[in-house]
């Protein structure tokens, strides 16, 4: 594992930042200071951390309403995100977006949408623009398992494959859409086989193996920069929190804590943290806590937008 060391640290820092930010959000939440519904991805952070790791500043990512991780992994401004959750003027969308519509155009974070699946073709459009401008940037678009049921997903994959666009499709398959299990929504679990029929590389990761995911993404991102077209990754994963809100909900009867335990044993945040030199880890952890404290401070002390700003940004 020696050769992985520097990337280990970087990956840990990403996973830990996302985990700790979301835990902080969950903690603040009952105070009602966060003026926004929050969809936490605790337990799923390793996917976006691994896949985004090798992206450049000029590359794009697109997440969903469950997008804190994607935003942060791509280098989105934490202060601006926290302020956005608080509804403040200093937020990444000046208080117009809340948690569900994070955006950081400077860091290549495409604006996220709360209408499931709609970000997928928008991300493909960014890839089309890249190709038209003859750049060699790439796009990574994240989606839930539910999103793949939307017609626009099939339409988007087909178009990206026809034009060999530089876009990596990533399905974070937590096997739930809100509370509905995948068996009620997918006729079969053969999504990677289906994607392969579009003539693109397609792979399923049934385990939270951050390094395999990282490797695969890296390889295919490089392929894409050479103009070899899209790829598809499915990562089976587990959502620790309730669908929306700060709590866990294993007591609600629609799923059992047992299935969760197996996943928690494989928690990447834990295992990756334990694999690091304790001193290094302590330094990273401290940096993260400082960042978070600063972001909360920033959000709390920022002003709300003035009512007069209501009509700002209706038209460009």
């Amino acid at each position, binding site marked *: 594992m020696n050769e992985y060391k520097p990337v280990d640290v970087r990956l840990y820092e990403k996973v830990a930042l996302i985990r700790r930010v979301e835990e902080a959000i969950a903690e603040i939440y009952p105070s*009602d200071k966060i*003026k*926004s*519904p929050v969809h936490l991805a605790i337990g799923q952070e390793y996917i976006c951390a691994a896949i985004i790791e090798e992206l450049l500043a000029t590359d794009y990512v697109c997440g969903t309403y469950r997008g804190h991780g994607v935003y942060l992994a791509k280098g989105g401004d934490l202060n601006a995100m926290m302020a956005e959750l608080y*509804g*403040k003027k200093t*937020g990444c969308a000046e*208080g*117009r*977006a*809340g*948690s*569900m*519509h994070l955006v950081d155009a400077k860091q290549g974070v495409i604006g996220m*949408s*709360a*209408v*499931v*699946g709609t970000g997928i073709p928008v991300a493909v459009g960014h890839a089309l623009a890249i190709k038209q401008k003859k750049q060699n940037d790439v796009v990574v678009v994240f989606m839930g398992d*539910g*999103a793949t*049921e*939307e*017609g626009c997903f099939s339409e988007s994959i087909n178009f990206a494959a026809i034009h060999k666009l530089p876009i990596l499709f990533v399905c974070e398959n937590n096997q739930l*859409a*809100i*509370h*509905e299990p995948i068996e*009620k*929504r*997918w006729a079969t679990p053969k999504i990677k086989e289906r994607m392969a029929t579009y003539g693109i590389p397609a792979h399923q990761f049934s385990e939270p193996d951050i390094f395999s995911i990282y490797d695969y993404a890296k390889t295919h991102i490089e392929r894409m920069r050479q103009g070899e077209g899209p790829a598809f990754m499915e990562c089976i994963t587990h959502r620790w929190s309730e669908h*929306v*809100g700060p709590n866990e909900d294993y007591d*609600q*009867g*629609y799923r059992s804590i047992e299935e969760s335990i197996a996943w928690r044993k494989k928690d990447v945040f834990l295992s990756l943290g334990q694999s690091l030199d304790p001193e290094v880890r302590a330094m990273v952890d401290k940096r993260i806590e400082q960042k978070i404290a600063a972001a909360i401070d920033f959000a709390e002390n920022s002003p*709300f*937008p*003035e*009512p007069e*700003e*209501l*009509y700002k940004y*209706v038209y460009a």
Partner: protein
Amino acid sequence: MSTLDNNRLLKYYEAVNEGCEQAMQEDDSVFLMGLDVDDHKGIQGSTLGLVDKFGPERVFTTPLSEDAMTGVAIGAAMAGQRPIHVHIRMDFLMLCMNQLVNIAAKSHYMYGGTVQVPLVVRTIVGKSWGQGAQHSQGLHSMFAHIPGLKIVAPSNAYDAKGLMIQAVRDNNPVIVMEHRLLYGTEAYVPKEPYSVEFGKSRVIKNGNDITIVAISSMVAEAIKAAELLAEQGMNAEIIDPVTISPLDSTTIEKSVKKTGRLLIVDNAWLNCGISAEISARVAESDIITQKVKIRRLGFAATTCPTTPSLENVFYPSPKSIAIAASLLCDPSNTWEPTEQQCELAYQKNFKGPF
């Protein structure tokens, strides 16, 4: 509102639920489909328990495929079933527009009367607590633009049940626009199945000084505003159109003929909206001879922001309604109610989740 016995106070969502349940009991061909209708939250309570009563053949969730699922519901309706298709937010209907506008609305006509589409589409308008751009839209006017569709907007628990039952009995596609912030409000609701007639505006409160037409959640806001106005000696007549399409404008015209003033308060944007239609019908009315003072209130002409400081000025409120009405009554009025006077209890209480 009813002469039936066995009235109980029921919450809006309970009334919707009871309406669905009784419609399903009444007719075996009625079934309920839509994302999450069978989970333990049951569309904020409005479908809770139905899967236990009627089984998974008649109450089932769907994949996230709003477009095709609407087509499926339409097809089932053509084949003799009576589907209720539920969407937790009205914004998502934008994914179903093709099926609703190009198929559901047109089939009876386009196929020369040989088929019918007795489809009910239930949708909920969201508001507050950071719902924002894509979870807050009242898009009823788009549907009212299309012949062949009907759209109703229950503003209280009584109508919620009666309109639901009537929607299921109707042989045409009917869109039921519910409102999230009304879900906790209560009204007396008869135990028996009953229906609220389509195409009949309801005069909620009589008055002589100004007619206020209010839609969906705006009815409650208008009632509050009318109380404030009454304290100032202005007596507002409040009308709830109940059904957006077909629209009974005659009741409104008669009221305006009496008051000479009209304020329309919609839970939607104004431009090309039902508020414009009502304003136009009054302006074009043969029974009104004087020039009427008309104003419209609704969503600000912006996308809905999430932060409360902007959201507060995005929506009409008892305050903005009372001020607008007061100015219509007398442009020289300078009175403004205080914030405190205006607060509606149900709004203070709402804290999500969705």
